């Protein structure tokens, strides 16, 4: 089914349809992740692939137009490259350990410690969170920085219109009123936000964490923008407020690391944060997860603002 969707994506010429299909593809792959026990990943893929990415692509399509022309050159060379790459991969898999076998090297080295010791060492049941936020916390910090870097890039490229649009008030009447939608949204948005907070602070026990929470929180605002328009959204959370918050999230994460350094540990060694190392781990993880959530939520909102305001300018 995934394969079919993928093929459909390639064959389609209407970009709009392609983007929608891509959303479906993302949802499907999320479900595959669930089957493969990767609930956290599935959660993220659903939020990002089906949510944020699709949204952004639609935002871009508004500006760039919907239709794709048929390519002029023959697909021979790309096909050869693809075949070659695929062949190398298939060749590579021939010696790969069998799927799902418990005695594969991946399950014998490194991972056992995460599975067996992390509930004691780090003190939280969700191993993904303990690896993410503690064992490999530095990678996660890198991930936050990547998000931040994307923000820097988007701002540099398309910027955000800071003021409200100069159009006279009367033009808002041109838009058809959408009372049903607006009421629905008003009802929904608080729940989404609460859910986001739940995901944020429940990441230690179930699937979730700062990243997913940030995305969900951002999507609440995005929903608001879509139903009420950019100007009203600005009144709710102005980009000038979000900008410093995005940097603060990064600094909160990095600052936690610096504090651990000052307290005598290596960077991001939370164990030194409290007398009891496990308690220290918990403090550290809460702090950095909050940093992640803060940055991700604000960056997603800002990027979305940027796309939408650019689209309005173009229109």
């Amino acid at each position: 089914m995934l394969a079919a969707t993928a093929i459909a994506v390639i064959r389609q010429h209407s970009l709009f349809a392609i983007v929608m299909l891509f959303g479906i593809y993302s949802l499907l792959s999320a479900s595959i992740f669930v089957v493969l026990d990767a609930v956290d990943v599935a959660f993220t893929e659903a939020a990002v692939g089906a949510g944020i990415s699709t949204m952004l692509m639609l935002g871009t399509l508004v500006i760039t137009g919907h239709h794709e022309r048929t390519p002029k050159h023959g697909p021979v060379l790309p096909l050869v490259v693809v075949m070659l790459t695929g062949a190398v991969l298939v060749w590579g898999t021939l010696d790969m350990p069998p799927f799902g076998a418990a005695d594969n090297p991946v399950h014998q080295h490194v991972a056992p410690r995460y599975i067996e010791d992390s509930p004691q060492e780090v003190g939280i049941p969700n191993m993904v969170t303990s690896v993410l936020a503690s064992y490999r916390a530095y990678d996660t910090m890198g991930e936050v920085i990547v998000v931040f870097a994307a923000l820097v890039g988007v701002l540099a490229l398309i910027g955000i219109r800071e003021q409200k649009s100069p159009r006279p008030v009367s033009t808002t009447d041109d838009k058809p009123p959408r009372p049903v939608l607006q009421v629905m949204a008003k009802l929904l948005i608080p729940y989404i936000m609460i859910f986001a907070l739940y995901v944020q602070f429940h990441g230690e026990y179930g699937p979730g964490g700062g990243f997913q929470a940030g995305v969900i929180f951002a999507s609440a605002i995005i929903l608001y923008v879509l139903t009420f328009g950019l100007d009203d959204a600005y009144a709710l959370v102005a980009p000038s407020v979000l900008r410093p918050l995005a940097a603060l999230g990064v600094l909160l994460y990095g600052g936690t690391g610096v504090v651990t350094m000052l307290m005598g540990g290596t960077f991001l060694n939370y164990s030194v944060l409290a007398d009891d190392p496990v308690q220290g781990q918990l403090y550290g993880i809460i702090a950095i997860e909050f940093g992640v959530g803060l940055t991700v939520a604000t960056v997603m909102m800002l990027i979305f603002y940027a796309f939408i305001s650019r689209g309005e300018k173009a229109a």
Partner: protein
Amino acid sequence: MMLDFFDLYNYWVVIFLMMAGFYTLIAYDNLIKKIIGLNIFQSAVFMLYISVGKVSGGSEPIAADNIELYSNPLPHVLILTAIVVGVATTALGLALTIRIKEAYGTINENDIVQMNRDAEAEKAQEWGRE
């Protein structure tokens, strides 16, 4: 050999998806389609990682009292990071696409390459007149 085939079947599906994305990425001229291809390509790689982490009969890696066998959490963590990297790249790529559309009036790579070549040729001519 047959046994091998079924052991590796999962990987091969992933490889097929990966190559579909890769093909979209390099064979098409439309910039947005390229970005979508990139996404498909990447998410197929993610699936490969997650497949590797799967243990038959294991459950999701959240410690519970009654579970003995867990799937490997490490690939999950890596892929969480990679997904984020992917969306960041997508956002930046789309922002670039918007700017390209504004600057060139098209998002077809062939046209853009042609326009760049024309500009270069014009410059060369200007110099030639000196």
